[in-house]
C-alpha cells in the first residue's frame, strides 16, 4: 500500500493505492468518484473512461500506483449546470443518452478528441467514440451531439477545453 496523490478535476486528493489496484477502483473506492462507471473491467466498454494527463484512457486498464501525481478529469469536472461544457449541453439537447451509464465515458472520449482535433470529420468522430459501447441509443444521437458540440464551440470562438485542464 502506498499513499498517492491525484489531481481530480483540479483538486488534489490522496488515498491508499494497493498493488494490482486499478485507477478505476482507486477512484471509486478510495475517492468515491462514482461518476466513473465500472462496466466491464477489461477495456471492452469504455464506461470508465477518464482523461489522464490529457489523454482519454480506460481507467480499468491503468494501475493506480502508476499514476501518482497525475491529473485526472472526470465527467463531473466539466462545466456547471449554469454553464455546461459544450458537450454536456449538446448531449442534453440532442438526447444523446438513455440510461446514462455509458454517458460519462462517452463524453470524456469526445472531449479528448475535440481537445486535440476541434474540427473533426464524421469519420474522426466515429473513430474517437469507437472504444465506447452503448446498448441503449444506437449511437446516432451521440454522433449528432458531438457534431453539435463542435458547432457550439466554433460559434463561441472558444474551445471545448474546460477550466480544470
Amino acid at each position, binding site marked *: 500500500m502506498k499513499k498517492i496523490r491525484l489531481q481530480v478535476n483540479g483538486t488534489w486528493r490522496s488515498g491508499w493505492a494497493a498493488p494490482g489496484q486499478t485507477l478505476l477502483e482507486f477512484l471509486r473506492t478510495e475517492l468515491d468518484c462514482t461518476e466513473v462507471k465500472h462496466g*466491464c473491467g477489461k477495456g471492452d466498454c469504455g464506461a470508465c473512461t477518464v482523461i489522464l494527463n490529457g489523454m482519454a484512457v480506460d481507467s480499468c486498464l491503468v494501475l493506480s500506483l502508476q499514476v501518482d501525481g497525475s491529473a485526472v478529469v472526470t465527467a463531473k469536472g466539466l462545466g456547471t449546470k449554469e454553464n455546461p461544457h459544450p458537450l454536456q449541453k449538446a448531449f442534453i439537447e440532442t438526447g444523446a443518452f438513455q440510461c446514462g451509464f455509458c454517458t460519462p465515458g462517452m463524453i470524456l472520449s469526445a472531449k479528448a478528441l475535440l481537445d486535440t482535433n476541434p474540427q473533426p470529420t464524421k469519420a474522426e468522430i466515429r473513430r474517437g467514440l469507437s472504444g465506447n459501447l452503448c446498448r441503449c441509443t444506437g449511437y446516432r444521437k451521440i454522433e449528432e451531439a458531438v457534431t453539435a458540440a463542435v458547432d457550439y464551440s466554433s460559434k463561441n470562438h472558444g474551445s471545448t477545453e474546460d477550466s480544470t485542464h
Partner: protein
Amino acid sequence: MKYIGKRVPEIHGWAKVTGQATFTDDLRLPGMLHAKILRSPHAHARIRGIDVSKVLQLPGVVTVMTGKDTPGIKYVAQVSDMYPLAMDKVRYVGDPVAVVAAESEEIAREALSLIEVDYEVLPAVFDPREALKQGAPQIHEDKANNLVLTIKRDFGNVDQGFAESDFVFEDEFSTQAVPHCNMEPRSSAALMNTEGVLQIWSGTQSPYFVRKEVAHVCNLPISHVQVMEIHCGGGFGSRSKYCEDEGVTALLAIRTGSPVRITFSREEEMTTTRIRHPFNIHLKTGVKKDGTFVARQMDLIVDKGAYCHYGPAVTGYAAGTAASHYRVPHFRFTGDVVYTNKQAGGPFRGFGAPQAIFAIESQMDTIAEKLGIDPLELRLRNANQSGDTTACGWQITTCGLEECLQKVVSSTNWQEKWKAEKTGRFRQGIGLATAIHVSGSNVFPDGEFSSIEIKMFLDGQVSVYKGSGDTGTWANTVIAQIVAEELQLPMEKVRLISMDTETTPQSLGSFASRVAFEDGNAARMAAIQLRNYLLESASARLQVPGEELQIEQGQIVYQEDAEKRISYGDAVFHSPRCVGHLLNSFYQYVPNTVRLTPQGYANVSAAYAFSAQAAEVEVDTETGQVRVLRFTVAQDVGKAINPIAVEGQIEGALAQGMGYALTEELIVDPETGRVVSDCLDRVMLPTVMDIPQEQIFLVETCDPEGPYGAKGVGEIGLNPTAAAIANAVHNAVGYRAHKLPIEAEDVYYFLHPEKR
C-alpha cells in the same frame, strides 16, 4: 399543445451527463458489506456437501451462507423452480451455490476460494431436442423429459385451412441466445432497518415484482419490503420482473444486520443473467394463388435453459405475434418449453416476437418469390387493418401498417433496388419486414394496472409519484411532460419520484411497451383531476363560475376580467381538499383488456403498434461478410409524446436488431456447458463504427385509447430488424438465412459450395 409532441430534454439529463445519476453500485451506505457469489463450475451436479469452515477464519469475512442457511423457498416466477442459493443440485455453469459477505469485495472474492464443495457430477444436456428424448439427463425432478410445459393454441380450423390452400410452405428456422448486455452490470444492495423493513436498491424495471419475490424468498410480509428509488443502467427486459441476486442480497442483509451489496462482474452479468431464448421454429403456411394467407401453424422448441423464469409468457407471446402478424384466419401453435443445462432465458425486448417474426417474414419472401408476387404486394394483401380482430383475439383499433409500408417503400426507391441486377464482388440488396406489438399486455395473474399520484405544494409546484421504473427509456420525462401539459406548468416545476414502493402508488412495471401508454393515461387523468380541484377552489375564492376560468403558468385567471386571478399555491391553500398544505390527486388506470386464458384467445392490449422496416445491405461475395448500409423505418407510434425519446427507442432497437441479425451470440461450449462469449468483446455488440444510415418516419394514427393517441414504442423497433436484414441478404446474393445470426461463413459457403 405546449409539451406534448415536443422535443423536451430528458429530466435527469444533468445527472447523466456528469455521471451523478446514482446507480446501485454508486451507493455509499455506512458499514456496507460487499458480497460475492460462489457459482457452480459444473453444468449439472449434485451437491454432496459444502465445507465453509475455512472461510470465517479469513480476516474481514463477516458471513458465509449456503442454501441450507436460507428459508429454502423458491422464487415464484411462472413455474417456481429456483432457490436463491442451490439446495442440493446445480443445473448450469454459474448456478449460485454459496455467498460470502465481507468488508471488501476483494476479501469476499478471496474467501470464495476457501469454500469446498463436494460435487457429484451428473451428465448434462445442452440441446433442447436431445433433452426431450427418453433417457436424457433429468434436470428437474418433477419434469419428465425436461418438458416444462407445452403452450398450445388452436384457432379456426387449421387442417381445413391447409386443405383449402393452393400452396403450403414449410420451413425450419433457428435463433440464437443473446445476452442483454446492459451497460450497468447487475447490482443490488439491501438493508434491514430498525423497524424490520427490508430496504432494497436494485436497478429494475418493475419494483412491484422485486418486492413480491424478495418478500417471498425471505419469508417476510410484503409490507416489510421496500424497493428504493435508484437509476437503472439499461433494462431491455432483463430487469423486467426480478433478478436472482436480489433475493441473495436481501437474505444477507437479514442475516448480517448490515447493509450489503452484490455487484456482478461483467462475466457474471453475461453468463448468469437471463438471456433471449433460442427458438427452433417449424413454420407452415397455407396460401391461395393470389397470396392470401389461409392457415398458419407454428411449432416451437424453446430452449429454456436451467430455470423457467418467464419462459412460458415469452412463448405465449410468440404465439400471439404469429397469430396476429398479418391476417390469417386459421392458426395453430405448439410451443414446447424445454429445460437444458444452460443459462436460463427470460424477457428480452420483443418478448419472443423477434424470433417468430424472423421466421414469418423470411418465409413471406419465399412465398412471394414462388408465387411471383412482389413482396410488398404480398404484405399489403395480408396486412391488418383498423377494426380487425386477429386470430387470437387482438382487437386492432387503429392500424398504420399500410401507411408505414408505403412510406418505407416510397422513400427507399424500393422497387428499383429490389429488381436491380446484382453483379460484382460487392452486391447490394434490400429487404422488407413488418411487426405488430402490444402497448401493455394483460397476461399475468398480478393484474394490469398503472397508477400515478400527484401532490401540489403551496408554491404551486408538483411532485409526481410513479410506481414503475425508468431504465433509461425517458419514461419519467414523458410522464412529467403529460403532467406539465395538463397543469400548464413549466417542466422544471414538475418533479418525478419513481419506483419507491413505500411512497409511489402501484404500477405493474415498465415492460411490454407499457409505461407511456398506461402510466401515461394514469398521469393524464390524475393531472386533469388535480386541475379540476384547482379550478373548483379558484371558482369559490374568486366567486366566478369554474368553466370561465383558465389556467396558465401557475395562475388561474378569470377570462372576463384578467384582474381576477389566483395563484396555484393560493388555490391549493384555499381548497377544501387541501390536506397538510398539499393537494393530492391519484388515478389508477386499468385498461379495458381481457386476461390471457390458457387457450390464448384474448384482447390483451388496449392498442397495437405497427412497424415497417427496410434494410439495405452490401454482401462481400469473396468473404460472405454482410454490412448494413441503411435502415428505413416507418413506425405507427400513435402519437409521439416526445419525438426525441421515440426516435431514441427506434435507433437503439435498430442497433440491437442489427446485432441480433449479424453478430451477437452467447456461445456455449457443447462439451462443458461453459459460456465462451463471456465478455462484451466476444458477444460483438455493434459499435458506433457499425451504425448505418437511418431514416425514421413516425406515423401518427392517434389511437383513441392512448394518451394523446400514443401507443407503446419500446420494443417493436427490434422485432422486424433481423428479418429485414435476412431478406436483404437474400435479395443481394440469394442466400436464405434459416438461422441467426447470419454468419459470413454460411454466406460464403453458399456462394462457394466448392470450397466447403
